[in-house]
């Protein structure tokens, strides 16, 4: 009966094309909005997820990675010696101004980490190595910043907070929600560059790598008892908190959600309307099929398959379109996170909403009296 559905769907070609355009547009909207949101959340949590830490010691009440209140870093030294920790390293986070070639200033997020430890620094390098920032005025900048900062040539010299600093490496995939370029330096250099009222060194976080990552919850609990002025978060909890902050506190989640849902509704509405128009136009044929002995299942299949065809083809065109817009958007600094999981998930949602939209037509045909075929047209 799917065959009959295809014939019915394609019979009125103009209607089919208009429907397809509507579905492609709305599926594209839903897809890009969702991918945009996920991309932003991935950026907002990229350092947390990739820093190589199982636990994070932060100041109390921390809401997201980028807004961190510094605290004295001497705690890191006491934690360092604990047997269950592989590493416990302070990470600093501060904001600085980087002078561009044309003299303009760009706000950058400076992450200071211990170049000898495998926690807290860049995790993927386009060139150079995380250890290259050791011993001096050196920095690693994320390659994605080229769009804001201009050509990032290794060995070139830049000025951050009026201090000349040499570019020794390019990281990959290190971004923040704020879209400010990320500059990695050694922890010591970061301390020197950051104006600090107290004379003690301050950390934004202490990143802890456990010998046994499965212990994270238990160790976190123990640490909470000891470090009463700090907040102890597992990596997963810190990711959740950051996502929650940007999603809820800023109202951004609601905005994206609304657009994505509107896209879905427009798509489902278009499909539902077209199928209803098709059904009403062909009520006579449905009655004939019923009289000829088509089962309720046959008839449902004909209608649902039309919804499936519309949704499938619409999504089938929208998905490559969204994938094609990924690269151009990326050069504009916008991350579109379209993975197979998102595509599969949104396809299912689109399909289900199309099938639901076909329900009115199914009811109409169920109620249809086949005896009408014995009366004239």
């Amino acid at each position, binding site marked *: *009966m799917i*065959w*009959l559905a295809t*014939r*019915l769907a394609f*019979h009125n070609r103009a209607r089919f094309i208009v429907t397809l355009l509507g579905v492609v547009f709305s599926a594209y909207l839903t897809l890009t909005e969702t991918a945009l949101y996920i991309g932003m959340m991935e950026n907002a949590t990229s350092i947390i997820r990739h820093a190589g830490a199982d636990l994070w010691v932060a100041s109390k009440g921390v809401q997201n990675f980028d807004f961190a209140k510094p605290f004295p870093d001497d705690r890191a030294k006491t934690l360092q010696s604990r047997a269950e920790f592989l590493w416990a390293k302070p990470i600093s986070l501060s904001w600085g101004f980087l002078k561009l070639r044309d003299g303009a200033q760009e706000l950058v997020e400076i992450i200071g980490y211990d170049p000898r430890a495998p926690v807290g620094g860049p995790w993927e390098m386009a060139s150079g190595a995380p250890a290259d920032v050791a011993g001096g005025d050196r920095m690693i900048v994320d390659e994605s910043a080229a769009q804001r900062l201009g050509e990032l040539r290794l060995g070139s010299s830049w000025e951050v907070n009026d201090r000349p600093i040499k570019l020794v490496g390019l990281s990959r995939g290190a971004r923040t929600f704020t879209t400010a370029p990320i500059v990695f330096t050694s922890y010591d250099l970061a301390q020197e560059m950051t104006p600090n009222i107290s004379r003690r060194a301050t950390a934004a976080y202490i990143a802890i790598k456990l010998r046994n990552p499965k212990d994270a919850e238990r160790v976190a609990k123990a640490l909470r008892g000891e470090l009463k002025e700090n907040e102890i978060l597992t990596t997963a909890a810190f990711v959740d908190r950051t996502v929650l902050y940007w999603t809820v506190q800023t109202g951004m989640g609601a905005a994206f959600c609304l657009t994505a849902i509107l896209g879905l509704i427009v798509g489902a509405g278009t499909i539902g309307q077209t199928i209803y128009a098709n059904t009403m136009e*062909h009520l*006579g*044929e449905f*009655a*004939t*099929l*019923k*009289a*000829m*002995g*088509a*089962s*309720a299942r*046959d008839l449902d299949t004909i209608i649902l398959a039309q919804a499936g065809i519309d949704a499938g083809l619409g999504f089938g065109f929208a998905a490559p379109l969204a994938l094609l817009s990924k690269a151009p958007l990326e050069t504009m600094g916008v991350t579109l996170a379209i993975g197979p999981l998102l595509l599969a998930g949104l396809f299912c949602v689109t399909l289900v909403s199309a099938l639901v939209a076909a329900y009115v037509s199914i009811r109409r045909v169920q109620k249809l009296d*086949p*005896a009408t*075929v*014995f*009366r*004239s*047209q």
Partner: protein
Amino acid sequence: MKPLLEARALTKHYEQGTMTVAAVEGVSFTVSGGEIALIIGPSGSGKSTLLSMLGCILRPTSGAILLAGHEVSNLPDRDLPRIRRRCFGFVFQSFHLFPFLTARENVETALRLRKISADARRRRSADLLEACGLEDRMDFYPASLSGGEKQRVAIARALAGDPFILLADEPTASLDSANGELIFEMLRRFAKKDGKAVVMASHDPSARGYADRIHAIVDGRMTEIGPIN
């Protein structure tokens, strides 16, 4: 011979506002394999109503329908499509071909409903259309077929599922007499060769020559049952 199809005191009343229309009133009637029964009667006398009840498309207000001795009029709604598929072929008063399908696809639809394989479908639809003299019209859409051709496609579609009983409502309406005779000839072949039953309603005087029995219906009542020879 045991009748293939039997109607016992069939009645259909339509509620039309405060009025009750007695479309069919206490009609009893049988038809056996190999027989062509003709129902004649003026317009509005209840022929179509009777046929749709016989074909399990319309539920009677009272009375019973028996298929090969088994009562089917008391079966629940969900069982009726299967009965229609298995036992009946329908030719409707106004063709009711699928406009978005070619002649051949129209015929194949009846086979698809019966889950016949693609190979068998192709063969059977070609054979039937050829038997109806439509071998060079198979890929035409109904819109580009003449009235007679449409009617023949409708008959090929009704015969496709190899039914026991063919119910035909005015199968020659709007056809000239030559085309009409062609159709009646096809129906006779179907009844006589395969021992199937045909019940047809027709105004066409030439139909009488093909019928084994004639039933006249006036105002919903069968008034005369006459074997012609």
